[in-house]
C-alpha cells in the first residue's frame, strides 16, 4: 500500500506530507517535516515532551496519527516565537532559569501557551495540574511555576515587560 498524502497547516503555513498510516504525528514532525523541537520521551502520552496544538487544543503528538492532521492546523514549539522575538513565556523561562537540560522545555512552553490562552489568570494550583502531564526531571518544577505565573502576569499587562 502506498503512503497517504496529507494536506495540513503547520505553524500557520500550509504543509503537505506523505506518511504511513501507523506513523504518529510526532514521527511526521521529526522525521518528515524535520521539526525536531517536539521531543519523544515516552511514546505513550505520559511525559508531554511532544506536546503540540491541534486546532489550538493541546495534545500529545505521539498519541495522534500523522494522517489525522488532514485539514487541521498544527502548532509546534517552532511556531511559538514571532520571528526573532521570543514569546513572553519563552522569555520568562529564560529569566527564571526554568530549564536545566531543556529536553522537556519545548513541550512545556507549548503547554503553558495553551494554558494562558484558555485561562489568562491561573492559580498556581491550576497551573500545576495543567502541566502535570509534562514531566520535568531536572527542576522540581519550582522555577517553571514561577516563570508561568510571571508570564501570565505580563501577558495580562500587570507588570512591565
Amino acid at each position: 500500500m502506498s503512503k497517504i498524502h496529507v494536506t495540513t497547516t503547520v505553524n500557520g503555513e500550509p504543509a503537505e506530507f506523505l506518511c504511513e498510516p501507523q506513523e504518529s504525528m510526532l514521527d511526521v514532525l521529526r522525521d518528515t517535516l524535520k521539526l525536531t523541537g517536539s521531543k519523544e520521551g515516552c511514546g505513550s502520552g505520559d511525559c508531554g515532551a511532544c506536546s503540540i496544538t491541534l486546532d489550538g487544543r493541546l495534545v500529545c503528538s505521539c498519541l495522534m496519527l500523522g494522517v489525522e492532521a488532514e485539514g487541521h492546523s498544527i502548532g509546534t514549539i517552532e511556531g511559538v516565537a514571532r520571528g526573532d522575538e521570543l514569546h513572553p513565556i519563552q522569555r520568562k523561562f529564560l529569566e527564571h532559569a526554568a530549564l536545566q537540560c531543556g529536553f522537556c522545555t519545548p513541550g512545556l512552553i507549548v503547554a503553558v501557551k495553551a494554558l494562558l490562552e484558555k485561562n489568562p489568570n491561573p492559580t498556581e494550583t491550576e497551573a500545576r495540574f495543567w502541566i502535570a502531564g509534562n514531566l520535568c526531571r531536572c527542576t522540581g518544577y519550582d522555577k517553571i511555576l514561577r516563570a508561568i505565573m510571571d508570564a501570565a502576569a505580563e501577558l495580562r499587562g500587570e507588570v512591565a515587560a
Partner: protein
Amino acid sequence: MPRLSYAAPTSVPDAIKLLAGAAGLAKVMSGGTDLLVQLRSGRTSPELIVDTKKIPGIVGIRETESGFVIGAATSGAEIGEHAGLCAAYPGIVEATNLIGSTQVQGRASLAGNLCNASPAADSVPAVIASRGVAIVVGPNGQRSVPVEQIVTAPGRTSLAKGEFILEFHLPKPKAHQSDAYLRFIPRTEMDIAVVGCGVSVTLDDNGVCIDARVVLGAVAPTQVVVEAGAKALIGSKLDEAALAALDAAARAACNPINDKRGTIDFRVKVAGVMARRTAAIAFERAGAR
C-alpha cells in the same frame, strides 16, 4: 505482517461498511489515546483503523428536551468546557477530566474510554451511576444499550463486528439530583485509578435520599454496580449508619487482583473510603440544587 490501512469515513453507513467488511481486525478510533499506545507496543495489530471523528455529530454535545447527547468521540476537554453538562452532571465531567493529562484530555473520548474496556476507566463508573445509555450503530441498525452492559470483561465489549458507539444519552437530571466521582491514585495526576467510584443521588425536599446508584471501578474485572450501596443510601440523609453500611457494601462488592497498582487488601479498604467520600460530595451537590 499485514499492512495497516486507515480510513476516515464521513457517514455512519460508510463507517459500518468499512468495519463490517474488514477481513481482519478492524479498530474504531475516536480519540486514539489508548489505541496508539497499543499499536506502538504491539499489543494490537489491526489491519484497519476507522477514524470516526469525521462522522457528523459524533463530536459535540447537544442539550435536548430529554437531556444531553454526547457525541461518542467528543474529547474530555470539550466535555469540561460545556457549561450545561458541567452543571447537570458534575460527576461525569470530573471523571472524564481525570482521564490522563491535559494533553490526553484534548483527545480522549467517552467512547474510547469505555470501549478500551479497562476496569479502571475513570469515566465509566460515573456514566453508569447516572444511568447513561450508549447508542450503538451497526450492520443490524441502531440499539440503545445501558453503559454497564457494554464492557463484558477486561479488553472485551458486547459490541458485535461492525458495531460502534455513536453517542451517549443522559436523562435530564431531576430536582435535587447530582453526582460525583472520586478515584484513588498514588500521585495527584497521571495515574490509572487504583479504585474509582461514581455515585449519583436524588434527594427529596428534606434532603432524604430517594434514589441512588453507586458504581466502583478497578476493583473487579468490570465496573461494579453496588446495589447494596445504593440501598444503604436510600432513605438516609447520609448519617453515620448509612456511611458505614455503604462502606461495607462497597467492600463486599470488590473482587480485585493484586497488581503493580495496588493489593487486594488495599483496594478493598480504599473502595469503602472512596464510596463514603464520593457519596458525601454527591449529597452535598444534590442538596444544593
